[in-house]
C-alpha cells in the first residue's frame, strides 16, 4: 500500500476541520485520485478533540489511517497536533496552526498547557511548518476562515495545481463567502512561501 498517501487533520470541535477535509477530499478527487475520508460527528464535535482521516492514491481500502503511517499531520491547534504525533510516520511532515485552545483541565488551572510546542516541533520534526492562521484569517476578513487559510498553507506542499484548489473551494463554499475564502486561501498559501 505504499502508493497510498495519508493526511491526518487534527483540531478542536468547532474549528472548521470538517470543511477543510471536504475541500481536501474534493481537490484530491479532481486531481484524479481515489480518495477516502473518515471522521465522526455528534457528541464528539462539541468542543472535543477531533480528527479527520484523508487517504488517497490508486485504490484506497481502509478509511482510517493506521498508527505510524500518516505522511502529513495537518494540525488546527498545537496541543491536538501533539496528541496525534504517534500516527505520523517517521520523517513525516507537520503543518500546524499556531494557536492554543485550552482543554478543560488547563482552563481550570489543574493541568499545564505544554510550553513552546512550535519550538518542540521545529526541534524534533525535520519538516515542520508553523502557520499563524488566526492572524491571517483576521487579515482575510473573518477569523472563521482559518480553516481555508490552513488549506492554503497545506496546498503549497502538495503536488496539485492551484487552479484545482480554487475549483474545489468554489464547489464547497457558499457563493456569498467565496471572495472571503479565496482571500484566506491565498494568504495561507503565500505564508508558506516565506516560511
Amino acid at each position, binding site marked *: 500500500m505504499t502508493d497510498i498517501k495519508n493526511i491526518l487533520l487534527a483540531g478542536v470541535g468547532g474549528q472548521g476541520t470538517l470543511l477543510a477535509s471536504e475541500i481536501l477530499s474534493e481537490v484530491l478527487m479532481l486531481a484524479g485520485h481515489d480518495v477516502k475520508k473518515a471522521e465522526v*460527528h*455528534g457528541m*464528539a464535535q462539541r468542543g472535543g478533540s477531533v480528527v479527520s482521516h484523508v487517504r488517497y492514491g490508486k485504490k484506497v481500502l*481502509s478509511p482510517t489511517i493506521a498508527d505510524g503511517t500518516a505522511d502529513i499531520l495537518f494540525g488546527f491547534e498545537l496541543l491536538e497536533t501533539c496528541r496525534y504525533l504517534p500516527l505520523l510516520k517517521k520523517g513525516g511532515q507537520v503543518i500546524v496552526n499556531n494557536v492554543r485552545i485550552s482543554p478543560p483541565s*488547563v482552563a481550570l488551572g489543574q493541568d499545564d498547557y*505544554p510550553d513552546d510546542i512550535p519550538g518542540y516541533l521545529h526541534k524534533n520534526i525535520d519538516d515542520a511548518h508553523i502557520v499563524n492562521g488566526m492572524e491571517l484569517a483576521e487579515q482575510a476578513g473573518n477569523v472563521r476562515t482559518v480553516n481555508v487559510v490552513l488549506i492554503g498553507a497545506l496546498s503549497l506542499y502538495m503536488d496539485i495545481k492551484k487552479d484545482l484548489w480554487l475549483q474545489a473551494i468554489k464547489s464547497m463554499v457558499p457563493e456569498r463567502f467565496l471572495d472571503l475564502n479565496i482571500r484566506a486561501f491565498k494568504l495561507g498559501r503565500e505564508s508558506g512561501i516565506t516560511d
Partner: protein
Amino acid sequence: MKKTILSGNEAIARGAFEAGVLVASAYPGTPSTEILENVVKYPEIDASWATNEKVSLEVSIGASFGGARALCTMKHVGVNVAADPLFTLSYTGVRGGLVLVVADDPELHSSQNEQDSRNYAKFAKVPMLEPTDSQEALDFTRLSYEISEKFDTPVMLRTTTRISHSKSVVVTGDRVTDLPTPCLEKNPGKLVMLPGNARKRHPIVEQRTLDLEKWSVEQDFNRIEEGSSDIGIVTAGAAYQYAREAMPEASILKLGMVNPLPKQLIRDFAARFKTLYVVEELDPYLEDQIKAMGIKIIGKDLLPICGELSTGIVRDALTGENAEEGTKPLPQAIPPRPPNMCPGCPHRGVFLALNKLKAYVTGDIGCYTLGFMPPLSAMDTCICMGASIGTAVGMTKVVSDDEKKSVVAVIGDSTFLHTGINGLLDMVYNKSTTTLIILDNRITAMTGRQENPASGYTLTDDETYEVDIADICRAVGVKHVTVIDPYELDNTRELIRTEMTRPEPSVIITRRPCMLMKRDVEIKSPLYVDTDNCTGCKVCLQIGCPAIEWDASAGKRGQAKVNRHLCVGCSQCRQCCKFNAFGVHND
C-alpha cells in the same frame, strides 16, 4: 452516470432517490442523521422527521402498504424503540419496498452503548445487507428495494460510523420511473396481525428465510477474492476494508448479505483453507453461526469484541506483526480534551444550579448529557432516550423523604417529545412528587440542529404547528409548570430550589435557543476580564465555559482570561462574578 465523492449517508440518500422512493421518515441519531438531511434535497421524496423511531417506522409501513417505496433510517439504539412494529412487519411483509437503515456505532463515538444490530435482523427474521463503502451503500440501497419486493419482506441495511461518515468516490445512476402508482388496496388477511392471521404468516416467514438463503448463494453481492491457498477470511462491511488491507495475500469471502447467511457458499469456501479467519466488528455474529455449521474458524479468540477494528488491529492479531513505529510522542502527558457544552450554551446555568443545590440528577440523551463533565458534574444517571423521568419516579419510591427532595429529572425538548411524555404521564398518574426540568433549546441539538414538533418548522423548512411543551405538561396533569430563561442564573436557581421541595409533581421549562441556531441567536460582543477588578477567586471557572481560562501568571495569584475568539457574549460568567471583573468589548 456521474462520478462524485459521497459519504455513506449521502450515498444511501442517493440510492433511495434512484430506487424511486416516495416517502422517507426518521428520527435523528448519530451516525444516521445525514441520510434524511440529504434525502430532503430530492423534492420527489416526501421526507420528514418523526417524533421517534417507532413512529418513523410506522409512517414508512403506511407508505409501503399504500404501495410506495419507503425509507426509514435510525441509529442502532433507535431499533430498540422501533422493534415493536419491526417484528410484526416481518410477518406482514410489504407492498411497496421498505428499507430500514440502521447505523451502528462501534467505539461509541456518540452513543450510550455498542449494540450490534445484525442480531436484530436474525431475531426479526428479515434480510440484512451490509455495504463496505459509499458505492456499495448506494448500490445496496437500490438492491434492497428489489429484494424487499421480490421476497415480500422489509430489508435492513446496516452501516457503521466508518461507513456512514466516510466519504469515497461513487458513480451515481438515474431514478427508476416505471413503479406502480400508490393506491389503497385491502388485504386484511395479510395486514391484520391478529392470532389467526399471524399464525398463517409465520411459516411463510420461515420459508422466506430459506428461499433468501438459497437465492443469495448465487448473487454477486457475496464475492470471493482469490488469493493465497493457505489463508481464507470471511468478512463483511467496514471490517472487509481492514482485512483486505492487512492481509493482501489472503483469499477473502466478502459477504454483502449478513442475514440469512449463504451457508453453502461459506461451506465451499471454508473447505479450501487450512486456516480460516472471520474478521468482524462487535459481536461474534458470523463466527457463532459458522461454528454452528461445524466449521473450524478463528475470530474473537484473536480480535476484540469491544470497539472498532482497524487495519493495524487486524494485522497485529492475524499475523503477530507489530504496528509501524511512528513519531515519538511529546515527553509530557497531554491533557485530555473531552467534548464540552459550547460557549453560551443555555444549559450551562441549569447544571451550575443543580450542582450548587446538590441535586441527584437523573439525566437523558442530548448535548446536556455533558452536564456530567466537571466542573458542572451534575448528572447522576443516563440510560436511554426518555429514561430520566421514569428513573426519577422509581428512585423516589424507595429513598427517604429527605433524599426524595433532591431528585431532579432533566430532559431536552426533543427527547421529551420522543419518549418523555409517557414518563411524565406515569409521574402524575402514580403521584410522584419529582421535579422535571425540560431543557428547551428549541431544536434537536446534539445531532446537528434538526427541527422537531416544538420548533415550529419541518425537515423541509416549512413552518408548521409549534407544539407547546408547557401545554402538554398541563394536559397530562402537572399543576405547577413554569417557563424561565436559563440565562437568568439567580432566578433559575431559586426556582429549582422551590420546586425541589414542593410536595407535588412540577415541571420547569428552561427556554432559550441553542447558541448554534443562527435563526434565533443574535451575535453579541465578546467579554474581557478587567485585570484591575479580578481577584483570582475562580468562581467564573466553575461554569465550565470553554472561553474562560485560568492564567496563572496574571495578577497576584492568577486571574481569569477570556478567549475572545470563543466568547459569544452570553454574560453568564459576568453574573457569577462578585467583583464586576467582566467587561464587554465595544467593537
